[in-house]
């Protein structure tokens, strides 16, 4: 237990100052001003050198993504993925609600770097408050001449269009998101071609997550070396972790990559609620990453370490389950989520998540059969690697990891009815 751990506030350092939400409180877009005076390749070189990696889940190097944009094809687009919806995640919403200009400045710098004049900001439909904050912030930027035909008097045109989703988790997948902006069903596209060459409206496009864009102004102002001084060698910078569930102090905590799960859960979040013991936690995105047990509390929270320990860092959502929680119920809830959010495009995911949910519902009612465990694993094995996009592949994690680590919970649900024997 390390109660002394403190946050490293970079992206969240202005959160406590409510004035910061307005342009006047935020300040002068000094990083953008600098970017406008630089050669685009210079900006990309700094971001590359910083080794900033995408915060949306995959951890792809941001500077490299930007450098893929062909220089001879225009228009090109910057798209921000603010379709946060992974159960247990609430970092992008707070980043936008408490510091909208940090995001807009990051997007604007990215636009200059790739030679784009139009930014599309895709905001999850349900985030009504965040959308209002963004509407106001964007309007302020137009009034102040930061956006418009000549950004900060540089002659560089910058437009920002706010697009709202309408309730579909799959639109967090970048090609589904592009389909959605284009007014279609949010179903993923076949890749290649990748968005870098054929993205929004079939034009070269960069799609980044909110947290990724939010890092950019800081990197430009403080330099790549400063950024690399935080976190681990392969995962520089800070990461926001969203901690919720059975903990004393749920919330967003910003720490350097590589901070242990123990420091986050027992230190910053105050430990398991009511002094109970920890049963399980999700390391990075409640529904899509294999669950860890208490033996994994000392794993460092960065892409490489979490993967080496058998899970994924995902979006950084840590949901804590105390000793009284039923892992069958957890698996059932997350699977029901996937069965609902499967876009229906490919059969393994559409049918597979449906049958997983059906079988888990039987367990949930204590009507499981011994052979159902094999059925669950068999169905899961026919989803992973056979789905069109990552949603299907990730959907099996709650099922397979709970069967592997908490098989006893399942065995307690074998019977002829009577409901969950673990949680009432």
């Amino acid at each position, binding site marked *: 237990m390390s109660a002394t751990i403190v946050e490293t506030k970079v992206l969240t350092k202005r959160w406590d100052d409510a004035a910061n939400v307005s342009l006047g409180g935020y300040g002068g877009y000094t990083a953008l001003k600098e970017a406008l005076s630089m050669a685009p390749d210079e900006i990309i070189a700094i971001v590359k050198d910083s080794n900033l990696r995408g915060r949306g889940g995959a951890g792809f190097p941001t500077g490299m993504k930007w450098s893929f944009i062909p220089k001879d094809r225009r228009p090109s687009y910057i798209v921000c993925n603010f379709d946060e919806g992974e*159960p247990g995640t609430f970092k992008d919403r707070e980043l936008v609600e408490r510091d909208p200009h940090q995001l807009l400045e990051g997007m604007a710098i990215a636009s200059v770097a790739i030679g784009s004049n139009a930014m599309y900001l895709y905001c999850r439909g349900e985030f009504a408050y965040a959308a209002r904050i963004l509407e106001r912030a964007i309007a302020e930027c137009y009034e102040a001449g930061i956006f418009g035909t000549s950004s900060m008097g540089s002659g560089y045109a910058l437009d920002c269009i706010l*697009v709202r*989703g309408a309730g579909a988790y799959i639109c967090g997948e970048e090609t589904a998101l592009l389909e959605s902006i284009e007014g279609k*069903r949010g179903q993923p596209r076949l890749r290649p071609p990748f968005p870098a060459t054929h993205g929004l409206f079939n034009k070269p496009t960069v799609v980044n997550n909110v947290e990724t864009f939010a890092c950019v102004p800081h990197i430009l102002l403080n330099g790549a070396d400063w950024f690399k001084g935080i976190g681990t060698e392969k995962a520089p910078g800070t990461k926001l972790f969203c901690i*919720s*569930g059975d903990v004393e102090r749920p919330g967003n905590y910003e720490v350097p990559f590589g901070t242990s799960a123990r420091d986050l859960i027992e230190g910053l979040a105050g430990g398991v609620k009511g002094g109970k013991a920890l049963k399980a936690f999700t390391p990075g995105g409640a529904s899509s990453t294999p669950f860890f047990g208490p033996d994994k509390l000392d794993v460092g929270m960065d892409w490489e370490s979490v993967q080496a320990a058998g899970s994924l860092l995902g979006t950084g959502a840590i949901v804590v389950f105390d000793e009284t929680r039923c892992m069958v119920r*957890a698996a059932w*809830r997350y699977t029901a989520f996937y069965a609902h959010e499967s876009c229906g495009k490919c059969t393994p995911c559409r049918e597979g998540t449906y049958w997983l949910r059906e079988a888990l519902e039987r367990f949930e009612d204590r009507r499981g059969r011994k052979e159902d465990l094999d059925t669950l694993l068999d169905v899961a094995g026919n989803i992973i690697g056979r789905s069109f996009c990552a949603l299907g592949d990730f959907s099996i994690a709650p099922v397979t990891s709970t069967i592997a680590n908490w098989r006893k919970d399942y065995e307690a649900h074998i019977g002829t009815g009577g409901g969950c024997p673990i949680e009432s």
Partner: protein
Amino acid sequence: MRFDTSMMGVPSVTFATTPLSARFFEDAAKLIARYPDGESRAALLPLLYLVQSEHGFVSSQGITAISKLLGLTRAEIAGVASFYTMFKRTPQGTWLISVCTQPSCAFAGANEIITKLQELLGISCGATTPDQMISIEEVECLCACDGAPVFSVNYETYEGMSVDDAVALVGGLRDGATPPAGARGDVPADFKTVSRRMSGVEAPR
């Protein structure tokens, strides 16, 4: 009864709707102009919100109007509308209550809130009270898990309320009360007003 195939899942019910207003067509033109030439289809989601602002759901009449505006078939529009959960196939109440039941919220009593709301209103999730005051639905994570349990009233979130307080709030709405301010300090407007806002037409971009 006329067989209406405007949206799969509601095949045999036609809801009476008033003619779309002149303002609808002015707003629609504004929204379409926002996107690049030749990409007017990008205005489809905003236009569906705009239809909801007039009728409280995606009406058959609205689908026909959009099909003329964007040069799409009715089937293409219904195909998109039925994909997204925020586009409603039946007229919604003045207040749409959305309750998250993912684990962090479930730990904090979300299922009890759902059960008690269904009892209080005499309807199940996905339905609307006969007086068109309240619609309730169970939703996926609303991404405010540190404030569990979380529910929203016309997409304005309420966090950390006890089961009894949450049920009392909805009971008040049913009886005609104005909602209290949500977790971010704002008071939600009625469903149609919020839908217009969500079309984006009130914003400069």
